């Protein structure tokens, strides 16, 4: 049980089950860590912007750097008018980054390693893109399915393929974050499990266990990079998709 690498992803209910009609709204360890991630990012930003100094301190610089980071990301992918989505993209980025980072604590639950969480986020982006694209461009939004410079006789096929490609976006969008977090945490657990089981077989084992231990340390560092990078990738893909809603027809 202790060495089961997927045990860490099991959902456990906290408190009484809450059933609203057909919906199961029971509070779980996954919900707890989503609440913690939201609370952590809100608290961090509130504390760091509470004393707005002209010369920023450490916390304030961090808040300003993260603001600039996301704003630059939106400007470079979706243009300046994409900045109206800044609150949305920043919220996504902050939440995913916090959830990933909280998952790096031992015994903490990684909510972003649950496909239901990542696909809910990806579908939210998907429907916002469709909703805003239709709201802003009307039928002009359909130009997103018609690449320029395609001969008329193969256009129906190309449009079909583009439609399928468009619908497949939330799949790859959500699976990337989910798979990266899941694979990373399983890998860490497997190598850490090697340490425990090798050290249990005597002196030679203890010497040999230093190899997976070293690997675990290296993987932990890599996982911190992945935790940040996947939050960044999720946010930048969101920007790229929002760009389609803002400027369809490339």
């Amino acid at each position, binding site marked *: 049980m202790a060495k089961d690498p997927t045990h860490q992803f099991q959902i456990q209910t906290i408190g009484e089950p809450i059933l609203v009609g057909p919906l199961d709204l029971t509070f779980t360890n996954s919900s707890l860590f989503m609440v913690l991630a939201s609370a952590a990012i809100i608290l961090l930003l509130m504390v760091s912007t509470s004393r707005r100094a002209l010369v920023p301190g450490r916390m304030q610089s961090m808040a300003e750097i993260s603001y600039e980071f996301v704003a630059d990301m939106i400007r470079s992918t979706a243009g300046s008018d994409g900045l109206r989505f800044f609150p949305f993209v920043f919220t996504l980025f902050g939440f995913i980054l916090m959830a990933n980072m909280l998952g790096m604590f031992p015994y903490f639950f990684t909510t972003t390693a649950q496909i239901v969480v990542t696909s809910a986020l990806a579908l939210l982006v998907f429907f916002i893109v469709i909703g805003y694209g239709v709201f802003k461009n009307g039928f002009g939004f359909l130009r997103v399915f018609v690449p320029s410079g395609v001969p008329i006789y193969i256009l129906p096929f190309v449009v079909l393929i583009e439609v399928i*490609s468009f619908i*497949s976006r939330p799949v*790859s969008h959500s699976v990337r974050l989910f*798979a990266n977090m899941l694979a990373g945490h399983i890998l860490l657990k497997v190598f850490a499990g090697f340490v425990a089981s090798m050290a249990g077989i005597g002196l030679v084992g203890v010497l040999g266990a230093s190899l997976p231990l070293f690997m675990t340390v290296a993987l932990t560092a890599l996982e911190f990079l992945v935790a940040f990078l996947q939050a960044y990738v999720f946010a930048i893909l969101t920007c790229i998709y929002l760009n389609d809603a803002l400027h369809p027809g490339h």
Partner: protein
Amino acid sequence: MSDPNKPKRDASISELDEFEQRLQARRATHQAQNAKREPSEAERGGLAAGLRYGGEFAAGVLIGAGLGFLVDLATGAPPWGLFIGAMLGFAAGVRNVVRAAQDLNAKGSPPDGA
């Protein structure tokens, strides 16, 4: 009385200018180094890029086949919907991969860090 002061001020100004130039040169090289060190997703091992291509392709195929299957259910026809849907899905998957590759190539040198 003002004579001994004046050349001194000039000297300090030219010293400032010189300092400014040195600072600019240092910052330029520093930024160049930073830009080089930031690992873009394409460089960060083949694993990440491979996972991305695989995911994009699989997503296209799955969605294409799924839509075809839905068409089958709706029309109650023989497996032609699934068949054609899977074919179109393969094409969509290739389209996704091409787009992802273009994206990764364009991001070879990210404009503002990874």
